[in-house]
């Protein structure tokens, strides 16, 4: 059940220049799936549209959500000013989630789609996965890694993350839930270059890819997955107005005719944000 509500900020800190880490107390946490997002609404009435932010983490008793975001403009700048105890307007939880895109209910590990034959335990156990995050696409990988630990061995969860420089936010968190490989643009930490360079340098391989990050990275992953003939599930971004599938603002071109739109467009906010790379045309 989606809901718009006023939640309470539990804590907030700046974890890298312009990157903020905020925990909010909300019962929406009970329903949150890795790869889903919430819409956050600025209080200033000149900025009305929601700001979609991925769920970075859910706390142990499922009463709080963690959002990690970069200041990009007026809305995120406002959020960065919130302190513990302040109210925050959110709508959630939204979108499908990484495992749901595969056909698995991430809350139970069971099958949710006709074309999927095995449960999460069977699907992941003994397999290798890549969790790839670039820049501010890294946060959703944390909850995904955490979740996958329920279904597979930690050291088969290969988390490949790309940063600009040595400001490797969330690194310690990620290391708790998988094997972390780092790429930095300036070469200050890990592989110099991007996440693809990190795969090559470390000679990594996988049976499935989950990814979130800038479009060039997603395009490279799509090509890589096609070449290796493995499925890649990528989380897309688009400007949103409603966040719930009503406005048709946030579409992505699809290979097949979409069952809802009856044209080659799927809605990122509801059919996504996670899509199998080969299903979407990302140029």
């Amino acid at each position, binding site marked *: 059940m989606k809901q718009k509500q006023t939640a309470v900020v539990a804590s907030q800190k700046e974890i890298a220049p312009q990157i903020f880490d905020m925990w909010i107390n909300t019962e929406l946490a009970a329903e949150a799936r890795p790869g889903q997002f919430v819409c956050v609404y600025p209080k200033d009435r000149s900025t*009305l549209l929601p700001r979609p932010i991925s769920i970075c983490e859910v706390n142990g008793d499922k009463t709080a959500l963690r959002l990690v975001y970069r200041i990009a403009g007026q809305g995120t700048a406002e959020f960065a000013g919130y302190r513990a105890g302040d109210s925050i307007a959110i709508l959630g939880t939204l979108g499908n989630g990484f495992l749901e895109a595969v056909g698995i209910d991430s809350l139970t590990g069971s099958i949710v789609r006709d074309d999927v034959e095995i449960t999460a335990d069977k699907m992941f156990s003994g397999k290798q996965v890549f969790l790839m995050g670039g820049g501010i696409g890294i946060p959703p990988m944390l909850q995904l890694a955490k979740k996958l630990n329920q279904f597979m061995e930690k050291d088969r969860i290969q988390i490949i993350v790309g940063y600009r420089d040595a400001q490797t936010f969330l690194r310690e968190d990620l290391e708790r839930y998988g094997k972390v490989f780092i790429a930095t643009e300036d070469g200050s930490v890990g592989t110099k270059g991007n996440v693809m360079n990190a795969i090559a340098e470390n000679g990594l391989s996988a049976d499935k890819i989950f990814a979130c990050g800038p479009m060039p990275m997603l395009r490279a992953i799509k090509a890589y997955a096609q070449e290796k003939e493995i499925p890649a599930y990528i989380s897309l971004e688009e400007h949103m107005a409603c966040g719930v599938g009503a406005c048709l603002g946030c579409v992505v071109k699809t290979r097949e005719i979409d069952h*809802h739109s009856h*044209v080659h467009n799927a809605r990122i906010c509801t059919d996504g944000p996670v899509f199998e790379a080969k299903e979407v045309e990302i140029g």
Partner: protein
Amino acid sequence: MNMQTTIAGIPFKNPVMTASGTFGSGMEYGEFVDLNQLGAVVTKGVANVPWPGNPTPRVAEVYGGMLNAIGLQNPGIDVFLERDIPFLKQYDTKIIVNVCGKTVEDYVDVVEKLGEEPAVAMLEINVSCPNVKEGAIAFGQKADALYHITQELKKHAKQPIIMKLSPNVTDITEMAKAAEAAGADALSLINTITGMKIDIHRRKFAIANKTGGMSGPAIKPIAVRMVYQAAHAVKIPIIGMGGIANAEDAIEFILAGASAVSVGAMNFVNPYTTIEVIKGIEAYMERYHVENLTDLIGAVE
């Protein structure tokens, strides 16, 4: 206290509707809003065949509002009749279908198919979508073209028709009169106002289509003015919209002369807006001892 309002002989339990294109066909917002409480659900525009719409980005935020250039993406009338109408029929609310097209024939096609569906109470004809290159917008910006299409559609329509007017005109009263003269049963206004946003850092348009239709609270004063002007120019009823965020806004439109109101972009900001507007109008009527909603229509001095 009586919240009922009547348009073209059709009674609505209250004057609050959803603005076309901002509420889908009600499914998505059914999770937030009890559709039974709405005066009407006005659907997203539907054409004779599926339309893919425009490339993205399709939406952008502007000060106090938004731009959109969805380009009327829709699954076409056949899917619509099979899927959306049966869904909406489950509810105790009126169904108004918004119709779009590129040529008069396109419109006629849709209008005829909808004529077979008695559950549809009224048709709203979108002649004012600024985001479609071909035809449609011209119908909404030239009085003679508007007259012509209205007259044609009246020949084929089984349900009463609402002509949805574009605000991108020099004189809204001229358009309102043309639609009335051609037989329109009601008017709705305003559709979005053409706007533009430029990302100065990338030196690119914020919307792929370059221009987009502006909606939201920022346009309300323009919308209220046009509703007032139109209400003084014609006798047919008016459905007012443009930036309604709360009951105060809705009442402003009603005092200006609207017989009903639609909530558009603000559904996105607060999915409970329609219900809050209904409750707020009730509270206002109670506070000022207004017996009938209809007593408020055009009651500004």
